[in-house]
């Protein structure tokens, strides 16, 4: 029995990691390539979740909801890029933190004004309801869907970045934007496109998370902190780094939450384990990041190998 539980937990870790990757991919592109500190990335995730929830609620199919979410996130991303973000590229990281801190406040409140504080209802699509029997252990089918979708996006973004002309332009723009502009490529348009793609990826993550997590104003903030941890561990600007780091954080967080309290129970008596276990578990991700940063400040998979 213990083995299947371990397998299920690994799957859970993998699924949580993939969801984190969907968020981290967009964020690390914007951070690494445009060196723009975007705290409002969580809000784009929220926009995607709301768009999907509303479209799905209005009777559309789940794929339609997904497309609506991508379109909405892309649109909001482009609007943000042209009005606010593009004016801040040459500015200091601090001005980015200040501007996006204000944006987060605005998005959370705007969503609350329009749709109220009530969390939205999102159903699991019929085709994905139910569980898969895994050596006698029921594993939710929808979670598999998230893993598959995440891997598809991972491969897709890897191909986009490495194997297409647009990807080459994006990478060139990262190393030397002036040169790319000098070659006649409208760097402004490229940056807008890149920010839009990052936003779309966050929108997809939001749409995927809808049926599993609570869709409500401010849902982006909690997941933003974990996503920042992922991209820093992976190495800022490295999509591959973000992929591996997301899986590591997903598994470490899941295993930490489950096995740390059990481990402590063997070592310390019950009451201490109950108090220390959950605290240590919730700190495990941050301990991991502090460790990585202290030993390898540039991250585990630095950007030059995107």
């Amino acid at each position, binding site marked *: 029995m213990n083995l299947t539980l371990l397998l299920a937990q690994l799957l859970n870790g993998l699924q949580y990691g993939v969801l984190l990757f969907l968020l981290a991919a967009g964020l690390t592109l914007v951070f690494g390539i445009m060196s723009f500190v975007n705290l409002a990335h969580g809000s784009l995730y929220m926009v995607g979740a709301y768009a999907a929830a509303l479209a799905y609620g209005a009777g559309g199919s789940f794929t339609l909801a997904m497309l609506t979410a991508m379109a909405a996130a892309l649109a909001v991303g482009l609007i943000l890029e042209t009005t606010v973000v593009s004016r801040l590229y040459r500015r200091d*990281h*601090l001005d980015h933190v200040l501007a996006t801190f*204000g944006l987060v*406040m605005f998005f959370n409140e705007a969503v609350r004004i329009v749709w109220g504080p009530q969390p939205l209802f999102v159903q699991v699509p019929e085709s994905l309801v139910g569980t898969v029997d895994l050596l006698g252990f029921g594993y939710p089918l929808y979670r598999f869907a998230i893993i598959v979708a995440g891997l598809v996006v991972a491969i897709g973004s890897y191909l986009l970045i490495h194997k297409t002309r647009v990807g080459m332009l994006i990478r060139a723009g990262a190393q030397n934007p002036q040169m790319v502009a000098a070659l006649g490529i409208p760097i402004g348009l490229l940056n807008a496109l890149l920010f839009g793609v990052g936003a779309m990826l966050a929108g997809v993550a939001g749409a995927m998370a809808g049926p599993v997590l609570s869709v409500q104003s401010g849902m982006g903030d909690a997941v933003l902190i974990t996503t*920042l941890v992922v991209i820093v561990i992976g190495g800022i600007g490295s999509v591959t780094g973000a992929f591996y780091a997301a899986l590591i954080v997903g598994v470490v967080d899941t295993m930490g939450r489950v096995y740390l309290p059990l481990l402590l129970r063997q070592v310390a008596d019950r009451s201490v384990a109950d108090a220390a276990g959950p605290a240590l578990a919730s*700190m495990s991700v941050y301990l991991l990041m*502090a460790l990585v*940063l202290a030993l390898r*400040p540039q991250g585990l998979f630095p950007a030059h190998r995107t």
Partner: protein
Amino acid sequence: MTDLLRPSRALLPLLFLLLACVPFAAAAAQQPFWTSFFARILIYAIAASALNLALGYGGLVSFGHALFLGVGAYAVALPAFHGIGSGWVHLLFCLAGGAAVALVIGAISLRTSGMAFIMITLAFAQMGYFLLVSLKFYGGDDGLPVAAPSRFGALDLGSAPVLYGVAWAVLLVLTWWMSRLRAAPFGMALRAARQNARRVDAMGLQSRRLQLAAFTLSGTACALAGALLANLNAFVSPSSMSWSVSGELIVMVVLGGIGTVAGPVMGALVFLGLEEGLKGVTEHWMALFGPLIVLMAMFGRRGIVGWIEALEQSRWPARAGAGRGRR
């Protein structure tokens, strides 16, 4: 235009004079609320000035300074919980605790730079938050009432006017020291290290050791603000260490004018004043406050003080301002 009357020079003395009147005005109008309202602004101004030492002078973008607010607050609440009401003990715990935590976190965090530094300071603050939330004995997430306010002989910080006076004095001393420190060897070397750490090392100083000292001083001063906050609210809770408080401190420093002396004080005053004002206007005040911050980030080149200096420079061009560094 003699130097003293220049707006940017006269700003601080005028500000402190006005702030000195608040408790008397509040008493005259039987409105004690304003004393504690402005006391909170003074305390956050102290915390913002402390952050400005690391962030403005040293260029160390710490996204976890709320941790030191928490350390200072619990340095008052824990002894008080065990029946120790003497202010000197609270002060000792606060300064020693703040310095120790800042030294350890600084030593580890300064191994990184740029985005990684921002994230590792955030990580330590989150760790502190989760640790306190799980400390059931000390009230955990529900917080802990301060059983005995800090008493320094006859001076009891439990009463709002007394606390206001102490906070005002602490802010005055800290701001004055900041203006002196800015031109003192330590301040100059620290500001030099922000511009080019390699050059500072090549000149014979150790930039990392300077930055660590600045981070420790900054953390300790911020803990002091935390201790005053605990006395003001007579209550401490882990939520005063959440990452959004760290974010608000950064916004106050940048809003007021990063790297300037008057910046943090102005930033705290405008940020908290605007927040309270907008709250009066509408329940959805964040929908107005957010865009305002975005506009300030986009157009306010170097915060309110920077804007005043630029205005003054265009109106009364001063001779080459000696020692007036921009950021």
